């Protein structure tokens, strides 16, 4: 039943009503018969943040491609809308048919990062569903979750029935078929969960029990007799065999990304030791240039987009990047279509690429040295030297760019004052390179923005055992940088260290952290990724009420033989490899990129029966 008339009555009283309407181009408005499966795809943040999410767009197109399935979308209503919805008892709805979420067979969330977890709880509640999975029954939708958060699903286990670990293209139809069959057979909830747990890559947390040691660490994680002892991430082995989604939804309102974005490859083999994405999305699988270019041409036809972006974890590493950009810029020359490359390497090659695509507009360039000293860059395996940085920015200045942004992290393991001073020195050298290269008005417009984010160690990385800095340490380090990164051409930006500390505690949390998330939500936490909405005091209180110490999860150095709460989730990368990488880091040894420097023996290819596919 459509809730549109109720929704419409309140739209005049809220900000940005476009968030709650439908009919965007390429959105699918259809119905299925009673036998069919209805899926609501939910992004736990506001519309303009959630809409561009590539994963949900892929699922949406795949699912709606089937006659017996309908997929609709839901986003977190902004605070003003939530208030009127609660006041007028309007349940959370999907956009396409404005149906209540409770009317769907499957409700799927994407867990993109830890600071949107409370929004999942809030959306379940707004939908009129019990927030706790244990309180939901046969009459409720099956609540599933996917996305990078599933590599440590434990903190969300109290709220989610089924986690889907890995790339959705690979297993979504198996899941939907099973749900369809079970629906026809009128199977009860428990049977549904047992049956789904047989699908490789599916994790049903109620089939696993966790025991703890006296010191609070995990003693063992035990699977029920008919559930697999570990869950291995599913991947698309040949990414080039998957067609480029042709009909992305075009938002009416200004979304965080609003452009034609085509994934040129999955995975990254650079091996930065802090980077979770670089570890959990292996191996590297490329699409062909022909596929990328024809995909873009189709998307431009169905969307009318005026900007093209080649997306991946490191698009400058895509082996056909040069040819692809050249072909695109020739094809769309004179049509007011702009090209962009979201991630640049610190090298001349990247400057050559952006020079090609930014013929007129030279807005700004962003580079990520990540750390200030060579020692630390070697430690994290970011294979960039100071010389690389200075040569690259000098080249950029020579080509006419005047605004450079540098990304660094503070709180990396083994960090000393010297490493912090290194951030200051390198930033100042970049300013000096700018002053030496630019002249006249360009010189006075020179701006170097330094962004220093507070590092949170993540599961399934070589740094999963290390202690995160405490809030006090982070704030002292921020103060150190703020006192020294001064000057007419320099500006310093950082994220709130408080939210990094909360993020760090949840990221490496176990099942009990779910209780803290639940209490945080009860205390009113939501939209935690929004600086203005984030409430550190409530989070502290929530952890305390749950009888937990955030620092136990974030600030504790773990033993290598400790059972990690996520040890039953296999990304394909061996824990032994991660340990070895940590040891190599402490010895100052670099690890090469397996695409060029030989196999690093991370285990992903044999474990997932896959390999790097480079064209």
């Amino acid at each position: 039943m459509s809730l549109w008339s109720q929704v419409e009555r309140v739209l005049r009283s809220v900000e940005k009503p476009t968030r709650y309407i439908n009919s965007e181009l390429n959105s699918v408005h259809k119905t299925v018969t009673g036998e069919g499966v209805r899926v609501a795809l939910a992004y736990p943040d506001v519309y303009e943040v959630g809409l561009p999410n590539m994963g949900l767009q892929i699922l949406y197109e795949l699912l709606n491609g089937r006659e017996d399935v309908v997929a609709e979308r839901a986003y977190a209503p902004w605070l003003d809308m939530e208030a009127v919805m609660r006041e007028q008892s309007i349940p959370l709805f999907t956009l396409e048919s404005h149906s209540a979420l409770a009317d769907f067979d499957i409700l799927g969330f994407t867990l993109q990062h830890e600071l949107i977890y409370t929004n999942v709880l809030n959306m379940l509640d707004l939908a009129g569903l019990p927030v706790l999975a244990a309180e939901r029954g046969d009459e409720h939708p099956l609540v599933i979750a996917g996305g990078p958060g599933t590599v440590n699903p434990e903190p969300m286990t109290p709220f989610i029935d089924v986690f889907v670990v890995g790339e959705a293209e690979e297993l979504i139809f198996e899941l939907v078929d099973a749900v369809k069959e079970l629906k026809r057979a009128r199977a009860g909830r428990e049977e549904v969960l047992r049956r789904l747990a047989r699908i490789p890559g599916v994790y049903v947390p109620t089939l696993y029990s966790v025991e703890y040691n006296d010191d609070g660490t995990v003693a063992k994680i035990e699977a029920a007799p008919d559930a697999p002892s570990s869950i291995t991430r599913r991947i698309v082995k040949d990414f080039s065999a998957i067609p480029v989604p042709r009909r992305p939804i075009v938002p009416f309102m200004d979304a965080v990304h609003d452009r034609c974005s085509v994934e040129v490859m999955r995975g990254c083999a650079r091996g930065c030791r802090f980077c979770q994405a670089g570890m959990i999305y292996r191996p590297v699988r490329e699409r062909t240039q022909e596929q990328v270019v024809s995909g873009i041409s189709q998307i431009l036809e169905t969307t009318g987009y005026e900007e093209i972006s080649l997306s991946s974890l490191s698009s400058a590493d895509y082996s056909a990047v040069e040819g692809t950009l050249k072909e695109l810029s020739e094809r769309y020359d004179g049509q007011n279509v702009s090209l962009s490359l979201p991630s640049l390497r610190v090298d001349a090659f990247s400057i050559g690429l952006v020079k090609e695509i930014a013929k007129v507009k030279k807005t700004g360039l962003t580079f990520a040295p990540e750390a200030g000293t060579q020692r630390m860059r070697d430690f994290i395996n970011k294979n960039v030297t100071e010389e690389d940085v200075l040569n690259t920015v000098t080249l950029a200045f020579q080509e006419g760019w005047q605004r450079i942004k540098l990304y660094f992290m503070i709180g990396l393991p083994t960090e000393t004052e010297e490493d912090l001073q290194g951030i200051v020195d390198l930033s100042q050298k970049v300013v000096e390179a700018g002053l030496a290269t630019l002249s006249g008005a360009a010189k006075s417009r020179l701006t170097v923005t330094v962004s220093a984010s507070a590092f949170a160690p993540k599961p399934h990385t070589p740094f999963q055992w290390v202690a995160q800095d405490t809030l006090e340490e982070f704030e002292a380090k921020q103060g150190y940088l703020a006192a020294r990164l001064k000057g007419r051409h320099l500006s310093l930006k950082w994220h709130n260290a408080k939210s990094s500390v909360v993020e760090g505690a949840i990221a490496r949390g176990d099942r009990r952290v779910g209780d803290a998330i639940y209490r945080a939500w009860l205390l009113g936490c939501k939209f935690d990724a929004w600086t203005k909405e984030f409430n550190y005091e409530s989070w502290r209180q929530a952890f305390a009420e749950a009888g937990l110490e955030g620092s136990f999860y974030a600030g504790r150095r773990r033993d290598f033989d400790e059972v990690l709460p996520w040890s039953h989730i296999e990304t394909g990368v061996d824990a032994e490899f991660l340990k070895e990488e940590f040891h190599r880091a402490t010895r100052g040894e670099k690890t090469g990129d397996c695409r060029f420097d030989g196999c690093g023996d991370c285990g992903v290819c044999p474990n997932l029966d896959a390999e790097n596919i480079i064209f």
Partner: protein
Amino acid sequence: MAKLLLHYGKDGPLKYLSHLELIRAFERSFRRAGVEVEASGGFNPRPKISYGPALPVGTSSSCEYLVAEVKSSICDDDIIERISRVLPKGLSVFRAKYITEKQPSIASIIECVAYKVEVKTLAGAGELSSLVELLRNEERLLIKHKGKEKWVDTKESILDWNIEEAGGGRLVFLLLLAAGERNSVRPEVLIDKVNQSYPQVQDIEVVGIERVAEYVNRDIPLIDIYDFYKNVTIGSECEKS
């Protein structure tokens, strides 16, 4: 280059698009339709499309206009079909014609606008009519909008009005309101005024507002904006065999 005048409408959920969102939707639709629009110069080239006065968010309309500077002319019927095919549901094109180049912009020549305002109320049409008549007899009206206040000349701003029964306890106000620089008012104004000035009438709830016509003058006979623009005859490619 040719100047294309499009008469379009905005309806359904899309009436909640802001003016900027509408502009982007049209720019992308022109691209999808393969109708090339001239771009402005500079570092940030923009398609040369000009629009009439912004429609308030939440108001539907059957009388919106835009002028696009297109690179090549395609005959009227074809262009309507090409654009209609790619427009999101809720936007529709009714008429199109090419106009001579040197003519004033749409926004600058609109003098009055006709609205239909549908309301839910317990009061009858007759009772409301007499209240509106009382209001109209006041020489000036104080208009409050977004924290600002202004006085308008009543008869110069509310040019004509009527109330019709729409069934189901609903009434429709037909309003002809001044637009442009002088004495312009928003369509909710009469209902707001009645609500404020006559508390004895149970609250009138606005159900929907639709813009139904735009004119370039304020006197009878009213001249519709589409008729005001002088067409040009486009060459042979528009001749149907």
